[in-house]
């Protein structure tokens, strides 16, 4: 009998607590597979956020630390400076990274910290129950913006990949999504690249994943994936924003 699929050794057997249709599970799998394929599972440390992924330390089968809200890039900086030969990652959502932790992510990127950040952007606070995020789309409803985000009152969303791409410190920045098999394959390539620039000591690697939150969006899992394609991606276009390994970039 031939094995056509096997769960990555980078994941434990602990049951995920994520909602049906949430993309965290896909992205966890991709990160675990990339580290396994690089042979780095025994050489990895991840800083997990405050948010829905707060318990991801239980799901990844390598060393992990639970960070303070938004501070994972600072905590990962401390770890990487002590263990420069280890693979050090942060895994953060949009409230964590783009609101309370904006300062930490910008400066970790500017320092060119040799870490890799996976940024899950689903435009909402998931764990606390659907409040407006820094990335909530104009007009999109949230429990703290019940008539939809009014940009004249609540301001505009942040495009983090574009912001960070203005800095000299990052080596690789790409925005991906995971709503189709093709997008999942592209997301894996992006994560691999962002890990490789760390491994090669080139600088900061960043992958933004435009993701879903069916529960707090009030959509079915299938409709949530459609929402990403129809509403989220037009505002957060997919693509490579920085790649210092490419000539002329």
């Amino acid at each position: 009998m031939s094995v056509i699929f096997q769960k990555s050794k980078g994941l434990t057997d602990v049951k995920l607590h994520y909602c049906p249709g949430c993309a965290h599970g896909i992205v966890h799998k991709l990160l675990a597979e990339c580290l396994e394929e690089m042979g780095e599972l025994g050489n990895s440390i991840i800083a997990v956020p405050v948010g829905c992924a707060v318990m991801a330390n239980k799901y990844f089968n390598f060393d992990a630390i639970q960070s303070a809200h938004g501070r994972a890039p600072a905590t990962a900086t401390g770890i990487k400076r002590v263990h420069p030969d280890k693979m050090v990652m942060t895994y953060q959502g949009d409230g964590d990274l783009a609101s309370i932790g904006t300062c930490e992510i910008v400066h970790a990127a500017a320092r060119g910290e040799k870490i890799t950040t996976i940024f899950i952007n689903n435009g909402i606070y998931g764990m606390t129950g659907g409040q407006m995020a820094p990335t909530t789309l104009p007009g999109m409803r949230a429990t703290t913006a019940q008539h939809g985000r009014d940009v004249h009152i609540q301001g505009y969303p942040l495009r983090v990949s574009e912001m960070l791409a203005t800095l000299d410190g990052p080596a690789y920045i790409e925005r991906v999504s995971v709503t189709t098999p093709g997008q999942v394959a592209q997301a894996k390539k992006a994560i691999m690249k962002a890990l490789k620039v760390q491994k090669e000591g080139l600088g900061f690697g960043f992958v933004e994943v435009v993701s879903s939150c069916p529960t707090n969006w009030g959509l079915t899992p299938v409709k949530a994936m459609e929402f990403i394609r129809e509403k989220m991606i037009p505002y957060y276009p997919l693509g490579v924003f920085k790649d210092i390994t490419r000539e002329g970039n």
Partner: protein
Amino acid sequence: MAKVLMKGNEAIGKAAIEAGCRFFFGYPITPQSELPEYLSEELPKVGGTFVQAESEVAAINMVYGAAAAGARALTSSSSPGVALKQEGIGYITNADLPAVIVNMMRGGPGLGTIQPGQADYRMCVKGGSNGDYHNIVLAPSSVQEAVDMVMEAFDLADCYRTPVIILSDGLIGQMMEPVDFHYAPKRELPPKDWALTGKGDGQKHMIVNLNMDAEDCENHNIQLQKKYVEIEQKEQQWEEYCMDDAEYAFVSYGTSARITKSAIDTLRKEGYKVGLIRPKTLYPFPKEAFKGKNIKKYMDIEMSMGQMVEDVQLACNDVNKVVFFGRCGGIILTPEEVVEFAKSVIGGDK
């Protein structure tokens, strides 16, 4: 080793290096900036790492990461900066990690003043972060003692897996005194077999801060409290000055205690039987020092509005025995005003 003349902030930096600290994460603030300045130059010479963080908040969270990775890590700041660090101090405490935090206090509240103060007693001794916790707090009253305490702080932190705060002030940070450096650990230090090292073929390590289940969270708190019981039993430190026949005792720490000693010398010449209990550990507060003493009044002297008074009242077990004199907001006490205060308390009873 011959003594060298060094500024307090720089001497603390050198002491940290001597104690094996190779990682510093900090942010500039007066009156402690000479400490990061010194370490930015000296740490790389010994293979260490200095990172000027983007904020106090980031600095303490870098310490959290470095400590979790098994290193001896240091950060320093002054009052408003230490207020910002409180979040991270709570996380480090909750995760049972060792770290050393230097607070060169200045006058407060808020931005306050850059002049020396002692008004962070409550923030640092009673806990400025959320939750039921303590940090060990050491209060040096000279540059030499600051050096010795920084070295001991790293050992205490590793021994009990807890943050240790050096609670000093701008005066000690800024003044120069002759010091020598002799690091001699007094405690057996446990191996850091919990550290994040990238697991290799061994056990996966996790540094956890969330106990989602309330029972788990309470059990973790109970473990923390056991640690504090042990610390309170084993680690109280204090100095007694002229206490053998004292009828009235000052209680004072750090810079205030130094000034109070000058006042005692003056008062003794005039026949007043006064002495000093100087807490060297503010947490654990040296309650043992007050046992078996026959003192008429305890005179608490601080550069604050009396933040230590309640601890003195508890230690001597008599609210009515404790009187207070202090200056604050960056004003440094003079021996003369301490003498005058003592005479107003003692009256003709000498």
